[in-house]
């Protein structure tokens, strides 16, 4: 087993917008695969498949800001759009010109934002192919409509709870104790809004968590359109039978359960022949 420390030693840090971003960069080939990992894990998800992948490709995996060994600025909230900016800056700094992108879970939203920008002529990077793996497209629907059922789900509960408890419950409490006026008219409130900008009060819990489900909802059209309009070949991995459980669990289980892992590796191999 590769320990967390081993993994850290294998990578290096790049400074992007004054933040340290952890990057795994292995493989001697010109053909490059960029991997955008999922939530709430890190590049470490790929520790088991990396040796195989690097027999064919140069593989670059970074920990998103706030994940793994990358910086986790407590006082900040950051959006998927910010994560896309960071990835683009990193790849630019590494001098990558032509790549394939493999994205998983949370990473697929980042990939879709990058694809939107690509379609809109905003990035010079040449993208040969994109593979969206276990994209939680359906989760967001269910999550919005049917949260309770998901929380009850044995396998998924743990995962979903992690998504929600830190942000929602704590903030509910916080809001109640503050009993803030919802209206922006009150000067005191507006001062507060701004002044909390750079203080970390209350931000520790939400910095990663509270936004991205909302974001997927907000950017649903933008990102669906990006997939439709793209001239880049896109492969979407979708489990046929039990779309939610299987695919969402895969991420959590990847390092926990041998059988799941094997399925995962086979999928990965299959799709990343890209």
């Amino acid at each position, binding site marked *: 087993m590769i320990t967390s420390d081993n993994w850290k030693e294998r990578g290096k840090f790049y400074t992007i*917008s004054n933040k340290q971003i952890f990057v795994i960069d292995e493989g001697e080939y010109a053909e490059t695969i960029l991997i955008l990992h999922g939530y709430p894990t890190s590049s470490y998800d790929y520790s088991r498949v990396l040796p195989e992948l690097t027999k064919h490709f140069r593989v670059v995996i970074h920990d998103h800001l706030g994940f793994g060994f990358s910086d986790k600025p407590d006082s900040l909230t950051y959006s998927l759009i910010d994560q896309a900016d960071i990835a683009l800056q990193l790849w630019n700094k590494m001098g990558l010109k032509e790549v394939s992108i493999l994205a998983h879970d949370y990473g697929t939203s980042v990939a879709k934002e990058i694809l939107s920008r690509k379609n809109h002529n905003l990035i010079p990077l040449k993208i040969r192919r994109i593979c969206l793996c276990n994209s939680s497209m359906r989760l967001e629907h269910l999550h919005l409509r049917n949260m309770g059922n998901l929380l009850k789900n044995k396998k998924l509960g743990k995962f979903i709870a992690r998504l929600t408890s830190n942000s929602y419950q704590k903030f509910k409490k916080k809001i109640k104790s503050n009993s803030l006026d919802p209206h922006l008219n009150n000067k005191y409130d507006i001062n507060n809004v701004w002044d909390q900008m750079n203080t970390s009060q209350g931000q520790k819990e939400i910095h990663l968590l509270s936004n991205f489900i909302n974001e997927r909802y907000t950017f649903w059209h933008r990102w669906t359109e990006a997939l439709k309009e793209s001239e880049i070949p896109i492969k979407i991995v979708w489990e046929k039978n039990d779309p939610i459980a299987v695919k969402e669990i895969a991420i959590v289980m990847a390092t926990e359960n041998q059988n799941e892992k094997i399925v995962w590796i086979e999928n990965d191999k299959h799709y990343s022949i890209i």
Partner: protein
Amino acid sequence: MDLALDKNIITAESWKNKGIFIPVFNKEIFTIDVGESEDCLVILHGYLTSSYDYNKVIDELSKKYRVIIPDLIGFGFSDKVFDYYFTSVDQADYILEFCKQLGLKNITFLGHDYGTAIVQEILARKNANVLGLQIKEFIYCNGNLPINHSNFLDTQDSLKSEVSKKIITMLASFGVYKKTMKEIFFDNDNITDEELKQMWLQLEYNHGRKVINFIYNYLRERKIFWNRWSLAIQETTVPIRIIWGKKDPLVDEIIPLNLANKVQANHIHWINDAGHFPMLEKPKEFISAVLNG
């Protein structure tokens, strides 16, 4: 309603004839483009309205600048989008491509209301070095700031639906629209029924009224991008100037005061006796504020 047209009023139709349509990706963007200067002033208008807001100031502004005012997608004479929420991020993408197509350089962005959010998104990209565009200055006019969601997580839904309901009511008829719009002027004699009718006609153009109520989503975006957009204006090296209609019932004057404190903008140009639309209400003062810094 029978409205006798004042000769001095520019009609929606004649405004349309002043502009051109520029295709950006798959959409037509109605654009006013006047002036010969190498310094470009790109104006991004506010929510519900259009480039027409600037009909009283454009002649003077175009003496110093090449003034480019697109109707944002979904507004005015530009293409409207159906069954699709066109985000501020999309707006920013389109504006960037638009600027590229027109070959604009030395750009001063003037954002008003909703337009300030789009400029903030552009500045965020600029700060992240993922944008090759020369931006000389940002003029920030009567626009709200991103919403800090730690304060508004629970309450935002009621806030959003309240604003949303208000907009729906407002769009029910010209009568209500007229009344609501007048309320956000300092002196409702500063805008005539005829002018408001022209604005209404643009809102109605190509079924715009049906698609324009996305305010709920927009408030959600302001929350999502609280940090991104606040940092964008704090960290930018682009100089920011603030021009503000002082008696704005929609956006409290504490907003520009805070903004001036936190960003590299030490000067607020107050336009007294003007509400949310200083360019319509006090055109002379607005022109002088833009031209004389």
